[in-house]
């Protein structure tokens, strides 16, 4: 299995009138097919910048991002991006919402519409196709948002703090839910979060970033001794606490 995404010596600077701020510096990272990578870091360390760079929403100051052997210049629909809030459009029905990406990429045809409908059916949203987002619960909305992302069949999913707008219980449940769907659809994913437990529970590999300018501080291959690995079960594994403490130390949090 080859690397889906390769990040090469990536640096990014923001310019303002008074200063130049280095958001991320010299990042090297590669994500294998089917892998789930979490990126944790202190707030403002450039985690989201890194995702925007991978998605091609921003152009790097230095270095490059390569997806499936091709350099990323400008946004491409090889990447599926999930934001903090679901951002389902309240003026569209659920079905109209999930085909948004297909509409934009001009790939909406009976075939793609059929496969999206199948996804909705598979993940329990069949009865909500013609409902508006405000008629759905938070968890269902997040699920619909994931299906919207999956609809364009992206090579890699980028989850930008995708659960942090939910309350704690919903968040655990939705993380579980989204994780299962990602695994079942066999997708490669990168999750950015500031929640250490969440990062360990979902990932095969956790990348810890330093304070700004963000660069890679350490990388952990998460190996947990639990059968049937799900975010919930992972939290029960004996090694979980060990990883947690180590990452906590790496983050070096001062109040």
């Amino acid at each position: 299995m080859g690397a889906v995404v390769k990040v090469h010596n990536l640096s990014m600077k923001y310019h303002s009138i008074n200063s130049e701020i280095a958001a991320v510096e010299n990042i090297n990272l590669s994500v294998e097919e089917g892998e789930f990578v979490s990126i944790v870091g202190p707030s403002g360390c450039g985690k989201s910048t890194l995702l925007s760079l991978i998605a091609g929403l921003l152009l790097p100051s230095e270095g490059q991002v390569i997806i499936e052997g091709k350099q990323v210049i400008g946004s491409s629909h090889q990447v599926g991006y999930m934001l903090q809030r679901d951002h389902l459009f309240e003026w569209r029905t659920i079905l109209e919402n999930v085909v948004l990406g297909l509409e934009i990429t001009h790939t909406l045809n009976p075939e793609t519409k059929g496969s999206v409908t199948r996804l909705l059916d598979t993940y329990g949203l069949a009865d909500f196709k013609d409902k508006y987002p405000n008629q759905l619960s938070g968890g269902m909305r997040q699920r619909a948002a994931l299906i919207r992302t999956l609809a364009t069949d992206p090579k890699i999913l980028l989850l930008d703090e995708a659960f942090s707008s939910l309350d704690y219980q919903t968040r655990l449940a939705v993380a579980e839910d989204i994780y299962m769907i990602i695994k079942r659809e066999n997708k490669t994913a990168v999750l950015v979060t500031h929640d250490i437990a969440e990062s360990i529970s979902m990932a095969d590999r956790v990348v810890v970033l330093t304070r700004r300018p963000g660069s890679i501080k350490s990388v952990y291959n998460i190996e947990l001794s639990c059968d049937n690995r799900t975010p919930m079960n992972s939290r029960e594994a004996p090694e979980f606490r060990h990883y947690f403490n180590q990452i906590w130390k790496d983050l070096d949090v001062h109040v």
Partner: protein
Amino acid sequence: MFMFDKKRTISKEHMEFLMKVRQRKILILSARILILLAFFLLWEVMAELKLIDSFITSRPSRIARTIGNLYSEGTLFYHTGVTCFETVVGFLLGTIVGTVAAIILWWSNLLAKVLEPYLVVLSSLPKIALGPIFIVWIGAGTASIIMIALTVSVVVTILEVLNGFLAVDQDKIKLVKTFGANRLQVFTKVVMPSTIPVIINSLKVNIGLSWVGVIVGEFLVSKAGLGYLIVYGGQVFQLDLVMTTVLILSAAAALMYQGVVYLEKLLMKNGRYTSDKIE
């Protein structure tokens, strides 16, 4: 998740609650009608008892007679029609031109920045002051009146709608950009639909402003319309005519406003646009 079960039985308590809501509605409606009747009655009685001078205040019975006269002369619907036509045209043009201008300014950030001070000056300028200029340029007629109505509402529309466009959640824009959306798609898929409630709201403001523009225009041009009747009545000291026209004007303005409210309901049905902030 909210699922409405229409067939559920209503408990006694809930029944009582619904009754109370209903009673309150009836109370409010009857109080409103009562105030109106009392006002006209008081007016009439005070005029009858000569507590007020009905030469300068007029009185409901004479207003009713004036309406009858206007109707039999055939001028009632003519003047009302002229004014309503001018208002609707001015209102529609103001909204359309304003929205199109806002779209252009949203599209070109640079242009918006360049034109900003001019917009500020135009928005604080009392547009009525331009009336005589339009009359000289376009002529003393309907076109000038519509132009004044348009000018009064257009700048407000530009600013309102542009602010609406700029207030669209950046993350929503980011979302469509991750699908590779171009600027036109960003506009048609996100910015425009998100701003519909703002545009509807500006319709409500514009209808009021258009009335102002049209009436002032008719004051200046004075050939036909309700504004003309008011000015004419004032000049010949026929307060009956002035009061009658003001009443007709209030009714027409209220009806048109209700029309916009109805349009809003129509566009916002199905629970769309009921804000997605509750999550």
